[in-house]
């Protein structure tokens, strides 16, 4: 039998970078087409986020250069704030080191792995460093070649040059050389990805130069740069014991009470009094021997009858006093068990819905602009639902856009987004697909959805989007989310229906009018023969009559649609 020390000789600490190098699939690097899209996605997302945080209207240019068989150079350039020299290695070289990781915030990125993952992918497929040219608008531009030291999870700059910046250029340009990828104009490819990104980000101007030199421009259709999302305090319903325990260790507040009130949303001093009662009640219920009685007490607690539950135990005030003491402790003294009790009590208590100021929907107006600008439809509408909560405490919001006709080809198209990021894979299992298919489109005058020129876009926004897998391409079928999506689609579809029926009615009226008008010359000639009246005069009488009739009809229709 081998000695333990022998066995553990081979035991090595694996760095975060090393882990992801071996598990590239978790970052979206699977398949030749998708890998390329992921590289572009990471760079473009970084650019958009940086521009938004700096309040700059993004101008992003993507260039795909074919260097050889399954060998490309990806160039992404933006007009963002640029990266200060000392942060370059951080941004591109270190995994899990982004500015947003571990914050309760709606984000496009993938917990800070994003662009460094792309740098790593370039490095492991082509062996080349990533070239970064950036300037914050000062008198210098920096050109750096970045690699990742996989063992140490650290970025290292292979080569660095400084250039004068006479024109005051500001922005970032990165060039990655990647192999084992392929550029195809498919629904999973770069072109489609950028098109979808442009729709959901109408404030961005996006250009793409394809390998054959073709320039494609998705122009900006809105001047309004969205505000970056803000951090939100966690809602008591959404936290785990571990969250409370660890936050308590880190906090600078001096009592548990102040810690809870200060670092969670929807907890007030009054709620703390209530919390004390609930914890006390739960402690007392656990002392009850009769299982049935215990069950009943839990149920009553769930109904909010906490005072009555407490009163049913003798000497309950003593327990309440004990629990109250916890609240006055310094938070770092909070035990795991106490944290557990707090989280359990949270489950029974009622709280206001979490605040939603951290959610940043695209907005109805901007969705319409995006769809109109890129797809050139005949009709467009959008619905942004008010924020809702799933799993008791995670805020989310749904918005949909619906475009019809115009340059849209026949056939239903669903554009899926999570936090504005296009989802290109796993459409079948996505809650958005299920919701869109569950709608009875015939009710909204769309008789054959699969042949109608309809584009439906769905954006699910949340600080925590429940993806079905590590690929983050499909949203799980959470009942609350599906309901919201359905309501949003139906709302938009109703507007489409109004438009379509109005259009049909108008067409019908025009057709009707023409029906009458075409007979007028015949009628005029006959009546002229019968009565001796001038033919042209008769014609005028009839045409005036028809005109008057349809004018009256039109104003009637106008009133109806205003009322509706």
């Amino acid at each position, binding site marked *: 039998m081998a000695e333990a020390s022998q066995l553990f000789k081979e035991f090595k600490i694996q760095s975060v970078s090393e882990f992801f190098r071996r598990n590239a699939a978790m970052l979206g690097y699977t398949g030749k087409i998708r890998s390329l899209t992921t590289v572009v996605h990471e760079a473009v997302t970084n650019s958009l986020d940086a521009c938004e945080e700096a309040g700059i209207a993004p101008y992003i240019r993507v260039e795909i250069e074919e260097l050889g068989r399954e060998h490309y150079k990806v160039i992404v350039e933006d007009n963002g704030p640029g990266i200060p020299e000392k942060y370059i290695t951080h941004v591109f070289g270190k995994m899990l080191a982004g500015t947003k990781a571990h914050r309760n915030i709606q984000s496009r990125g993938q917990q800070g792995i994003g662009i460094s993952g792309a740098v790593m992918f370039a490095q492991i497929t082509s062996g080349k460093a990533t070239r970064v040219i950036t300037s914050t608008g000062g008198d210098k531009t920096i050109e750096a070649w970045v690699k990742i030291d996989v063992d140490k999870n650290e970025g290292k700059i292979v080569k660095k040059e400084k250039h004068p910046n006479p024109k005051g250029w500001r922005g970032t340009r990165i060039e990655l050389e990647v192999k084992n990828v392929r550029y195809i104009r498919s629904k999973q490819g770069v072109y489609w990805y950028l098109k979808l990104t442009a729709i959901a980000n109408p404030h961005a101007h996006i250009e793409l130069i394809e390998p054959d030199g073709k320039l494609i421009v998705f122009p900006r259709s809105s001047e309004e740069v969205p505000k970056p999302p803000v951090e939100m305090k966690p809602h008591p319903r959404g936290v785990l014991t571990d969250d409370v325990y660890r936050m308590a260790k880190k906090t600078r507040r001096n009592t548990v009470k102040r810690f809870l009130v200060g670092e969670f949303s929807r907890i007030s001093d009054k709620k703390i009094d209530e919390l004390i009662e609930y914890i006390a009640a739960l402690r007392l219920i656990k002392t009850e021997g009769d299982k049935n009685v215990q069950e009943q007490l839990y149920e009553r607690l769930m109904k909010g009858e906490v005072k009555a539950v407490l009163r049913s135990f003798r000497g309950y005030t003593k327990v309440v006093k004990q629990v109250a003491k916890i609240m006055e402790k310094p938070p770092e003294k909070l035990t795991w068990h106490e944290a557990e009790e707090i989280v359990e009590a949270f489950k029974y208590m009622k709280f206001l819905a979490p605040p939603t100021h951290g959610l940043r929907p695209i907005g109805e107006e901007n969705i319409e602009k995006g769809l109109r600008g890129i797809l050139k439809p005949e009709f467009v509408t959008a619905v942004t639902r008010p924020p809702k909560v799933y799993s008791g405490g995670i805020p989310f919001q749904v918005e949909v856009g619906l475009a019809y006709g115009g340059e849209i080809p026949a056939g239903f198209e669903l554009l899926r987004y999570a936090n504005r990021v296009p989802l290109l894979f796993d459409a079948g299992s996505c809650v958005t697909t299920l919701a869109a298919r569950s709608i009875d489109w015939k009710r909204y005058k769309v008789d054959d959805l699969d042949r109608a020129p309809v584009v439906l876009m769905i954006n699910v926004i949340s600080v925590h989007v429940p993806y079905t897998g590590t690929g983050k391409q499909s949203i799980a079928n959470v009942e609350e989310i599906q309901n919201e999506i359905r309501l949003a689609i139906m709302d938009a579809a109703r507007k489409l229906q109004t438009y379509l029926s109005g259009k049909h009615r108008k067409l019908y009226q025009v057709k*009707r009018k023409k*029906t*009458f008008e*075409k*007979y007028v*010359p*015949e*009628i005029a*000639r*006959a*009546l002229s*023969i*019968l*009565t001796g*009246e001038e033919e042209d005069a*008769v014609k005028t*009488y*009839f045409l005036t*009559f*028809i005109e*008057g*009739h349809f004018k009256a009809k039109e104003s009637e229709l106008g009133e109806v649609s205003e009322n509706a």
Partner: protein
Amino acid sequence: MPKSKVVRREKPRERFSYDPTKVLSKLEEYGRRILEDIKSGKNPYFDIPMRGLNNVYFDEKRRVIRMGDKLSRRYFLNVAHARKFMQTLLIMAYVKRLVSEGKHASLREAYYANKHTIPGTKENTFEDQRESDPIIEDLERMLGVLREEMHLTADRRGYIYGDIVIRDGEDEFNTSKLGMGGWAVPGTVEHLQFPEINVDYALVVETAAMADRLIEEKFPKKEKALIIATQGQASRGVRRLIHRLHYEEGLPIIVFTDGDPYGWYIYSTIKQGSINLAYLSDKLATPEARFVGMTMDDIERYGLKNVTEKLKGIPPNKKGGPTGDYKRILEEMEYPWFQNKEWQRQLKMAVKMGVRIEQQALANKSLEFVAKRYLPEKINSGDLLP
């Protein structure tokens, strides 16, 4: 031996009334009303008496099928009506020209004359004669004016033979001096005048073969009868002619058809009018017409049993019946004008015996039998059905 005439000419009850200016003024009146409506911003329309079974009834007093007073209103500003509204005016204008110019056109000519592509469209004013014919019927009912008075004629059918003189425009002729074929009745008989009539009654004969037989046997001359051959169902011209001869000239009308449901129906149409043309009954029907044969009694009386034919279809007492001829007979038994003892007896007998008998069956006796014995015997003794 002087014949004791049961059937003889009576006093005239109507006067020849055709007046083209009446038609013209009616057309103009309608045109003016439409024009006034449109000028004052009203949706112009025509009120057209409805056609069909729902709008006819049997006038017991006058013993004719008449049209009810149900109207259908045809608007200009109605997608479903506009085309017909236009067509109506087109035909009206056409009729005005025909009548004022004193010309006649057939229904088919009227169709072709008014058919053309509407400028700026791929649509024709009329696509089919089936569109123009009903419009003409509508006009008849709307204006209360015969198609013939509007100078629109149908194909001619039927002929007459007998000692009467007809003035047709500039021509005057005796219909017994035109050869054995007699004189073909035109589509329009409105303008005909009868300066001389030397017959006691008119015998309306269903088949041309029988009419020819009677002429060959010199029946018209011997019996002082006018032969009118309908050649099947009587055309409007023939029915109008019968009506005029009866009411304007006082000629009794006697109808001679096959003894079968179709023959009786021909008789019924001459006498009471038809559902289709109920609005014209006052001008086409002759309720005083009487029926000479063939009757079911004739079979027995003249021993014609061996020349009868079986009725077609299934009798009412058999499974699946009644169908075919039986069904028609039972329907006719329900007609108000067949609600009398004699006719009910005849029709019941037909069903019971399950036979029909043709006029020509009389030839079984001899070629001369019908002219020398059958008809003179029955007519002169007044042995006629109502």
